[in-house]
């Protein structure tokens, strides 16, 4: 396919080469963590980053099969298209799927549902995630986090240490000279591995185009009934109900990120395929999280605070 690039004057061959180098780096990280850790797991949200991550992990061990399971932390606030897509991929790659349910954490009293108009299950995911890591004795969890996503993520190591409480301590991180990964941990501690650390949103979309990575349909333009809340377009239905003073309307939108349906906003867009999305991403003036995640806009350090608690 023809890759469009308004960000640089790079030729299609140069773009292919730069994305291939990122792939080499990611596959090297995935193999290293799989070899050093006893029981790793790949965190899969159904979003584009985890789709790329799963695609890379499958490639890393081909023609062998994926030597670790995939885990979905299910908030119960899902986009239907994403669950369909998840089950399709599990079938396609023949991987083992573990579902960790936020609803179950709430039912058992481990997590308490937030209330109010901004209530979301996003933060509760940390509880469910840490409980599942402990229950299944996972010692490493691969995540699709990227350093360009957020200023706290920009500080993240490739292989990131979590203490007994699942906490991230940004001031005491292990140095990673030459990107050499230290996977040594004690029982009860675990690691988060971020093979996409050095990818940008543009790289992700270029890779999706070159490799034909399948995505949930909501990443491309479609008609949807939404309400506008705090500058964000939220899909009406499921966890989102119409508040007093709001008028639902139909709009042509797509999603730039996929997360908990209660706090993930859509953007107005007519981009219906990867090439059109690439044009849009290259011209974007607002970050993907700024445009679409109500949870990150609560405060200046929302991501840092959640990460410290054990978030993805």
């Amino acid at each position, binding site marked *: 396919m023809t890759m469009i690039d308004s960000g*640089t004057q790079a030729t299609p061959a140069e773009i292919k080469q730069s994305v291939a180098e990122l792939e080499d780096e990611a596959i090297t990280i995935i193999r290293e963590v799989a*070899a050093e850790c006893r029981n790793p797991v790949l965190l899969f949200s159904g979003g584009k980053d985890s789709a790329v991550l799963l695609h890379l992990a499958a490639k890393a061990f081909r023609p062998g099969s994926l030597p670790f399971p995939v885990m979905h932390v299910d908030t119960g606030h899902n986009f239907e298209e994403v669950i369909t897509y998840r089950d399709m991929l599990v079938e396609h790659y023949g991987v083992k799927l573990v579902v960790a349910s936020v609803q179950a954490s709430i039912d058992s009293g481990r997590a308490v549902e937030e209330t109010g108009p901004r209530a979301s299950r996003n933060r509760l995911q940390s509880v469910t995630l840490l409980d599942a890591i402990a229950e299944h004795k996972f010692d490493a969890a691969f995540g699709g986090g990227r350093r360009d996503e957020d200023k706290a993520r920009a500080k993240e190591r490739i292989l990131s240490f979590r203490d007994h409480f699942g906490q991230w301590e*940004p001031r005491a991180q292990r140095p990673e000279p*030459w990107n050499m990964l230290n996977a040594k941990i004690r029982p009860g501690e675990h690691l988060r591995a971020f093979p996409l650390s050095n990818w940008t949103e543009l790289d992700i979309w270029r890779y999706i185009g070159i490799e034909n990575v399948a995505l949930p349909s909501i990443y491309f333009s479609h008609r949807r009934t939404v309400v506008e809340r705090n500058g964000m377009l939220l899909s009406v239905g499921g966890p989102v109900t119409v508040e007093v003073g709001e008028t639902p309307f139909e709009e042509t939108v797509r999603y730039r990120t996929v997360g908990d349906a209660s706090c993930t906003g859509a953007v107005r867009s007519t981009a219906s395929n990867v090439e059109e999305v690439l044009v849009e991403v290259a011209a974007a003036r607002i970050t993907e999280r*700024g445009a679409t995640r109500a949870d990150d806009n609560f405060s200046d350090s929302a991501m840092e605070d959640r990460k410290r608690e054990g978030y993805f």
Partner: protein
Amino acid sequence: MVLRIATAGSVDDGKSTLIGRLLHDTKTVFEDQLSAVEKASTRYGDGSLNLALLTDGLRAEREQGITIDVAYRYFATPKRTFVVADTPGHAQYTRNMVTGASASDVAIVLVDARNGLTEQTRRHLFVASLLGVKLVILAVNKMDLVDFDEATYHRIVAEATAHAQALPAPVVLNPLPISALLGDNVVDASTNMPWFTGVPLLDLLETIEVPGDHNVGARLAVQWVIRPYSTEHHDYRGFAGRLTGGSLAIGDLIRVLPGGQQSTVIGIDRGGVPQDTAQPGEAISVQLADDIDIGRGDVLVAVVASEAPIVTDRIIADISWMVDKPLETGSRWIIKHQSRTAKAFVGAIELRHDVATATHSPAESLGLNDLGRVHLNVSVPLVIDSYDRHRPGGAAILIDEATGMTCAALMIRDNE
């Protein structure tokens, strides 16, 4: 195509401001990021736009106005794509400077024009030398605070050049005068310093040529053995790892080290796709003609390699010590070298580098942020190269067995 940059310099020399300026003036800053910085500038400062807040992302950093940990930022111009590691200037975070510099093509060392060279500047130049950073840009910053004075600039450049040439591995400096705060010579040429005839920083970064790696011949440190056991691929055995040192092709004769057996490459896959040849940097898996016992940590080396690695259980290395607990003669650590993990015993501490004078002295132990040279005995033979000739084969880390903390970066030197 991607240029990897690390910043270095003393605290308050303006590293984060410089990166913020580069991001801002190349229009890489998104509107929501800029409005967040505007809000934070009011909260943590006098209200004027503080570009350092673009990279100082942790709450403690914003409160204290310092950089604590390496932040990685990505930006592109029509000519090049850049990854910038913004590293802390405070002495207690020097280990992060080592980390940032280890994976960089270019180091930008900032100096405050009012203060001239400080011990930290000398330390950072020393680190750049030890870690073999290929290009060093000396950015004399805050020129606006010395009235853009030409003589001040030349005095600092002369002092830094003298220090850089006295380093164990001399470093060539590319100097320029800037004001990160006002933007002089960052993206646009300064009108305040007509006496400077060079190009602004961004032009330099866009056009600077990075010297290529030495071709020492193909090496593949085995990370993982792919054995599908499926009907379709019943006899498949792929040795997976990242190729370094030189290219590899089907038909090439390889030697397995440390074992010494030889075989022929009969298949190369990259991401599961067969190809005839592979280039350094590619993550591949290799099939061999013979059924040889090969596992994680073994290294496949091209028999025709222009420079053969050394197999030894004794190494001499320059070391950057990164934790409070001291390194002492006779102490034991975990060593990780490529895909091999083993135990290491400190046979001797040969010396401690004095970063300020670029000399060295005998040492009984090494403390946090010390740079020195050690002799290690390793529990198994390692397949090593000199760090200067082949970085992946000459780099290693030490890990504390009790805490799991990464304690040191090692640059292996010739065994002479």
